[in-house]
């Protein structure tokens, strides 16, 4: 069986290579930060094989713009599915942003910070962005990592908060904290006062006796 598999693997690879002739790809891909403030927009290029090494940083008033040309077998064409998907690596949650694609394959999408779902906007880890291009028919789709985005919150504004919805599950254990038991003072002290109190009895009798004698 193992032998068969090892024999099949190169065959499969060969088949993949043959299919690769008609598969989706993209070209001239750029991502730029549209900053509201004067800092200007930075424009960076990425490609299928070379995702951006450095994460791009956006603050809560900015947005990013992704431009690319979708190609089917090397020719510009419009795919049915052209998404930029942002994924929170910690929770695995994803948000898709469909691209507006022209007939010749030119695709663009504007992602504003405000468009991010709250679960992603509150993420602390960088968001991983990938490009998904695919369509009907036999052409193979692609799903490639492109760049990552770090979110920078303005320290002057309150950060967005997200309250997790109720889910049934086990709850935290509670153990009642009992009040302390009543405590006694050291027995020596009690004994001392007992003696002090008891010593009044002979004192009383002696005092009375003295009084009568005199």
């Amino acid at each position, binding site marked *: 069986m193992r032998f068969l598999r090892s024999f099949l693997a190169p065959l499969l690879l060969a088949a993949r290579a043959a299919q690769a002739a008609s598969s989706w790809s993209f070209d001239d891909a750029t991502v730029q930060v549209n900053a509201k403030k004067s800092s200007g927009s930075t424009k960076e290029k990425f490609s299928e094989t070379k995702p951006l090494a450095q994460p791009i940083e956006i603050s809560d008033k900015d947005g990013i713009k992704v431009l690319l040309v979708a190609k089917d077998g090397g020719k510009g064409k419009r795919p*049915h599915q052209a998404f930029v998907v942002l994924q929170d690596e910690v929770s695995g949650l994803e948000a898709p942003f469909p691209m507006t694609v022209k007939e010749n394959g030119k695709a663009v999408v504007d992602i504003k910070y405000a468009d991010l779902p709250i679960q992603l906007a509150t993420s602390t880890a960088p968001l991983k962005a990938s490009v*998904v291009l695919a369509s009907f028919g036999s052409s193979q789709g692609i799903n490639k990592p492109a760049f990552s985005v770090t979110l920078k919150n303005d320290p002057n504004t309150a950060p967005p908060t997200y309250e997790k919805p109720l889910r049934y*599950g086990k709850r935290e254990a509670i153990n009642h904290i009992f009040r302390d038991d009543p405590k006694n003072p050291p027995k020596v002290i009690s004994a001392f006062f007992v003696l002090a109190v008891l010593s009044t009895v002979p004192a009383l009798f002696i005092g009375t006796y003295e009084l009568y004698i005199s």
Partner: protein
Amino acid sequence: MANLRSLLSFLLLALVGAVQAISANGGNRLLVILEDIADKDGYTKFLGDLEGRGFDIVYETPKSESLSLFHLGERSYDHVLLFPTKAKGLGPNLTPSVILQFINADGNILLALSGSTPVPSSLVSALLELDIHLPADRQGLVVDHFNYDTTSASEKHDVLLLPTPGPLRPDYKDFFALSGSDESGVIAFPNGLGQTLGQGALLSPILRAPSTSYSYNPKDESEAIEDLFATGSQLSLVSALQARNSARVTVVGSADMLSDKWFDASVKKVGEKSSVKTLNREFAKAVAGWTFGEIGVLRVNWIEHHLNEAGQSNASNPKIYRIKNDVTYSISLSEYSWDKYIPFTVPENDELQLEFSMLSPFHRLKLNPIISSEDSTTYSVSFKLPDQHGIFNFLVNYKRPFFNNVFEKNTVSVRHFAHDEWPRSFVISGAWPWIAGIAATVTGWLGFCALWLYSAPPATGESKKKQ
């Protein structure tokens, strides 16, 4: 004699409980609603499996005059299975309010939708009430260009091939793992309609779409999608709702996946050479079995609590305890599994918890399994009652997705120490000076009296002098 009688009545009660439980869960009157009764020939294996498990199936069409979910205010059927119908509405017998009323009356509903026929508006609004959302225009088709079947949908990519779903969370029991099937199988989801679920805790997806899939409107002629309904794992292909009364509603996005054609069909995933069998038959059995209360039904057999103190009476279920008493609480649970009750085992990473509460819980403790019999497990915990008197509840509130709700509340009074239950004063060393004070006063007074009585009158002359 009294003991024997209580034992007898206990047995009788247990018997009655068991009979009720079976009829509550295993009600077998199933109504199947189809566009045309002849359509049932497409689902012979699925319906045959249901019949083989003891369901009593009645077939109706939405247009039928005799169709009624209620008779004289009582449910006429225990379960309803709805296949896709073409009509825009479902007529006066299946309005959204009738459907919700059926759910409120503990009826279970399995709803099969399809990507090729628009969903009747009455079902859309009923689902909206349950916070299950369908695409606009009542129609949508789930496609995935990365996980489709190349033999049947090489062009349209609308036959999704999915691995068997794992548990939603590590502490949930996995009812849909399809035990006994070989690992290589996949679930085929042909021509289906995806749903999105609201935030509620009662909803849970059974089967989610893969991350690259999306839903679009097949009527939309444009080449690219403009407004996206949902994509990826937000899209629930088979979703479940368990209402607060434990009635179950399951929405299966693709009626075709229940059809004979896709039971044990042979499919080939894109990019793979060998074809594999579909597990749709096993999956359909699990989904229908869960919906119609054949699995995931818990039963509380009995609850018992008693004093756990040496030398004290250990009568069962007293009405009153004292603060700081040591108490043992036990609960016996069974789980229904297809045709019999089995001992209920709490899933790994999960806990069965007992709360001892007055308004808010004072204790929340884990119940540990102590005895396991053929059809039940007894969970028990011993603890000290809090030092607060009042009316308390022993509360077991076990709500988990895919298990019916267990909510058991037993009320007891907790009283203060009685006057003769405190330690005696001489045991308390801090009280010794006070006890000594009493003794000193008593002795002093007695001595004074003795002296007074003893005082002999002095010699007369002297006394006269004194006077």
